[in-house]
């Protein structure tokens, strides 16, 4: 059984009378443990596809199986539960809660999963250690550098033991050196913990950390190439 299986997914946006296909008949299979980069110019449909993979959005038609379960027809709360348990998000703008300490940001997914306060604290501390932020637990986001903030976000994505990390332009706001560090961290998590990592990027050198690169253009996949890490 494949981890993710998208079958003939179409997403149509309606702008008045005009119907716009953001995605058209996209099919894709992703196995556990893959490290994938989704690439393409703006408006190619890669972000829409990412939102559907992340269960933030539903396709207009087609089937999307996550660990063999069809999620295309789930309601809001069921999708929220899937996101909570199966998917860790990493965003370009970090998307941490301001005025909330690093450890509390990391605890957040467990809050909605119903862990006890003690368990939350322990697991969050462990996740922060994994991303190399030991000792910064009580820093607020505005007291951390961009790279450190993104590490907190990665710790938050890890903490519920989600099998998938979805990263949307994770290095978009970072300098080259920090970008490399973040990509190394994602690569390490992929290798050591067998977490499936899917990143959306338009930077070639970032995509080169991955082992499989999928190119989108005008709502369809134009190429899907696999290689070892360069």
């Amino acid at each position: 059984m494949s981890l993710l299986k998208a079958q003939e997914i179409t997403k149509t946006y309606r702008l008045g009378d005009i119907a716009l296909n953001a995605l058209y008949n996209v099919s894709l299979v992703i196995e556990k443990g893959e490290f994938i980069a989704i690439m393409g110019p703006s408006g190619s449909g890669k972000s829409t596809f990412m939102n559907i993979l992340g269960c933030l959005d539903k396709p207009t038609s087609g089937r999307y199986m996550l660990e063999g379960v069809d999620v295309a027809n789930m309601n809001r709360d069921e999708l929220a539960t899937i996101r909570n348990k199966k998917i860790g998000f990493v965003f370009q703008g970090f998307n941490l809660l301001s005025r909330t300490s690093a450890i509390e940001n990391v605890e957040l997914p467990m809050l909605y999963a119903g862990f006890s306060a003690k368990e939350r604290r322990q697991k969050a501390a462990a996740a922060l250690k994994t991303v190399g932020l030991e000792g910064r637990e009580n820093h607020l986001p505005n007291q951390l550098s961009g790279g450190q903030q993104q590490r907190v976000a990665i710790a938050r994505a890890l903490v519920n033991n989600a099998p998938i990390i979805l990263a949307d332009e994770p290095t978009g706001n970072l300098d080259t050196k920090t970008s490399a560090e973040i990509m190394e961290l994602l690569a390490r998590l992929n290798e050591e913990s067998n977490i499936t990592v899917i990143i959306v990027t338009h930077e070639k050198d970032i995509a080169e950390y991955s082992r499989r690169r999928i190119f989108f253009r005008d709502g369809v996949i134009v190429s899907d190439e696999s290689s070892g890490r360069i």
Partner: protein
Amino acid sequence: MINIPSTVRISFRALRVNKMRSALTMLGIIIGVGAVITMLAVGTGARQRIGEQIASIGSNLIMVVPGSTTAGGVRMGAGTQPTLTLGDAVAIQKECPSVLYVAPVHSGVAQVVYGNQNWSTGITGTTMDMLYVRDWPLSDGRLFTEEEVRRAAKVCLLGQTVVDNLFGGINPVGQIIRIKKIPFTVIGILEAKGQDPGGHDQDDTIYVPVTTAQKQLFGTQFPGMIRTIMVKAKSTEDLAAAERQINELLRQRHHIGQKQDDDFTVRNLTQMMQAAEQSTRVMTLLLGAIASVSLLVGGIGIMNIMLVSVTERTREIGIRMAIGAKTWDIRLQFIIEAIILSMIGGVAGIVIGISGSKILSMLFGWSTIVSPLSIFLAFGFSGLVGIFFGFYPAYKASLLDPIDALRYE
């Protein structure tokens, strides 16, 4: 599963971020709850006071006064026509089955002297039944006897105010005082009763036998004339019947024909007092209702601020949704925030309300009573306001699309 303690903590933090705004929002509820409690306290106090006064003039009371006279086309006030007699009083006692006690009253004002002290006060000539009519016990000494009433003995009972003004620390019982220069022996002291509903000091009085008042103190236009007859009905249910019986009896005794007007007036004091109590009750409700409007306005303030807060925190809502917050996680977070605002406001409002009532009592001498019920009501109501006015913003927040919310700048 929704984690309430953590949600409460998150809400507190969100409220602390905008301290000034939270405080101003609470102010609406504080004023509302404070106003409700104060107004109810004023109303309840007034009602209790009237209740006490009703009890102090005696229960189930009927007063019979003579009618008015007309002198050369000028109509005089009620009680100016000398028509009532001791015989009327005796007849009412005998003939009216719904009547329990009857006390004739012949009264006036006179100067009273004891030693080197003097005092002007109302002298009430009556019989021993008067104290039963008024539910007025003695604190010291004894009542007059039937024999003393018959022979117009010069004995008297003093009200507490008179005692205070004439006797400084001396036990008045057995002392001789002079009323209009006539010596009277003090045989008893009336218990302190306080003000009547009209604000009149009921303790500023002296009771003497009615016959003594007629013959020695104030005189009469004809023998046996009295000014008032006080009647106590057997029960509240008997009041109307007693009133009717007295009316019939007196018309008969005064030979008043079918088409002639009464030469006396029967007043049901208890009914008048109950009417006063009723109007105070209405006033209390009215005050409470007006104050509730301010609570409502406070609630709308909460809704307003929560709506602003939802818009400001759209991105936060998006993040929470993306990492797994369900519809009710989001809703509860905002509802709990609204409840915290209104409950803290409610508690502060209760404090303000209680102190406000105390201040009103001190400044204006109103009796105010903060009942536990009004506190409970105000607190419960403010909680409901939080839930009610917090729900719509919370509902709006929970319906946000996670993708749009995440992109919100």
